[in-house]
């Protein structure tokens, strides 16, 4: 089956310019940019999914969901272009997280449906966890990050979501957040206070933090 070729503009352009153009197109939701993005990234994501699971259907599900999620991440403002190479560096980390998260969700869904699979089933390559120590630790980090992001998404106010994302994901100070959002510092404090309360309540429920057994650690 022929493989779709990259667009002429992508082939001829300086890589940095191509990256910038692609990012601008993705942020704007341009269908051409989305198509190019999928062509350039799908096999890298699929190859990683193949290291995590042996079933082609699961690999396809995880890859599709991860790529769709990545495009949504861009629409949700979870990426800020900081110069040449920043997008692909973000993509490599974010895609890694997305695939692991989809795998985690998929396995939980199958467990609920009674397939009898566990997290340990169908994982042919433990080195797929980037060789970072115990895979269970890495999966726990994925679970926590997924819970934080899911709770952020549930916040009713876009302002709260934005400032808390800057606080947690980008480790910005309150002053920096005020400058980035062009908002008064007291307003930012108010958004953070209200948003953090809701976020924490959500995290307590999502991660079972009420019970001592729900303690979270590295």
């Amino acid at each position, binding site marked *: *089956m022929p*493989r*779709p070729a990259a667009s002429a503009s*992508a082939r001829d352009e300086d*890589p940095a310019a191509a*990256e910038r153009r692609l990012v601008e197109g993705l942020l704007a*939701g341009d*269908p051409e940019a*989305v*198509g190019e993005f*999928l062509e*350039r990234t*799908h*096999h*890298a994501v*699929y*190859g*990683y999914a*193949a290291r995590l699971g042996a079933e*082609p*259907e699961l*690999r*396809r*599900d995880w*890859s*599709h*969901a991860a*790529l*769709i999620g990545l495009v*949504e991440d861009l*629409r949700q403002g979870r990426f800020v272009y900081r110069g040449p190479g920043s997008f*692909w560096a973000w993509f*490599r*980390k974010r*895609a*890694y*997280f997305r695939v692991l998260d989809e795998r985690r969700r998929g396995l939980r869904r199958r467990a609920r449906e009674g397939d009898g699979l566990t997290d340990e089933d169908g994982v042919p390559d433990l080195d797929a*966890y*980037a*060789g*970072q120590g115990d895979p269970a630790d*890495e999966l726990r*980090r994925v679970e*926590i*990050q997924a*819970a*934080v992001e899911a709770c952020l998404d549930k916040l009713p106010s*876009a302002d709260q979501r934005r400032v808390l994302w800057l606080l947690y994901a980008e480790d910005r100070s309150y002053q920096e957040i005020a400058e980035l959002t062009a908002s008064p510092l007291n307003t930012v404090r108010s958004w*953070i*206070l209200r948003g*953090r*309360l809701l976020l*924490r309540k959500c*995290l*307590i429920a999502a991660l079972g*933090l009420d019970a*001592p057994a*729900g303690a*979270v650690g*590295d």
Partner: protein
Amino acid sequence: MERDHTRWRELILCHEDLEGPARVEADSHLAGCSECRALLARVQAAERSPRPRGMLPPFAGEAAPLAPGLRAEADRSLRSLQERLGLSRQLLPRDTGRARPRARSGGAEAKPSWRRLAVPLALAAGVAFVALVTRPDREQEAVRGLRILPYAADRGAADSVATSPRVRWRTGDAFVLAFDLARPSHPVVFHLGPDGEFSLLHPADPAAPVPRLPAGRGLKLPSPATGETWILEGAPGPEAFMLTTADRADPPLAEILARAQALAAGQRRRQRLLTALVELLAADLGPVQTVEIEHVP
């Protein structure tokens, strides 16, 4: 005591952002309550928990090296994703909405309700996901740019359709579907509800002839000239509207609908169901575009 603990809980969860007397009060309680100290510590630990440390292998934006067998599998997966999303895909915020069922009995049918909107609707930001499927043997996309647009009667019939998608669709919201046709054809619209029920939206009757529309951009169903809209209702959740085209006015919609409904009844996983439905409709009718939205209460 239980009521006091609840009040303290709200306070300590805001601990970092408290100032003045409130902060003093919270600190005083934390000093004497191990349970609250432990809860706050667990929450803070979760927030500060290191992120996953790995990343995909170095990626230069070019094709990743894959074994021959895996490459073929990956090619099929990419093609499947492209068929679902299409080259003219327009990614918008995910939004959920549901067409109003003609009959509410058991929620078994989800049919569009055609009626003139009586009240204005509040707009909200929305995320919609649009996918186009093209048949492998078609060189030109017959239908492009499917999107769901709110209908606001207070702005007058001529411009009552917004040009930007809504963020959150709520029960009672009225909407139309907008799309482009590359050539004259007979558009058909299907609907997949949150609970997997699959139905025909346009035409309302599978035995009725499918009206022909000319080629053009920004076509709408229901037609604005009729003043009719679809109404969102029912339980919240993800919903999909699928637009395809037939080459004639009398495609076998009843048979296609029956097969699609059988497919929907047997597949609980929504992503796989959507892919399978798109493939079925593309094979039997024409290129398919899908818009998915999220309906909030």
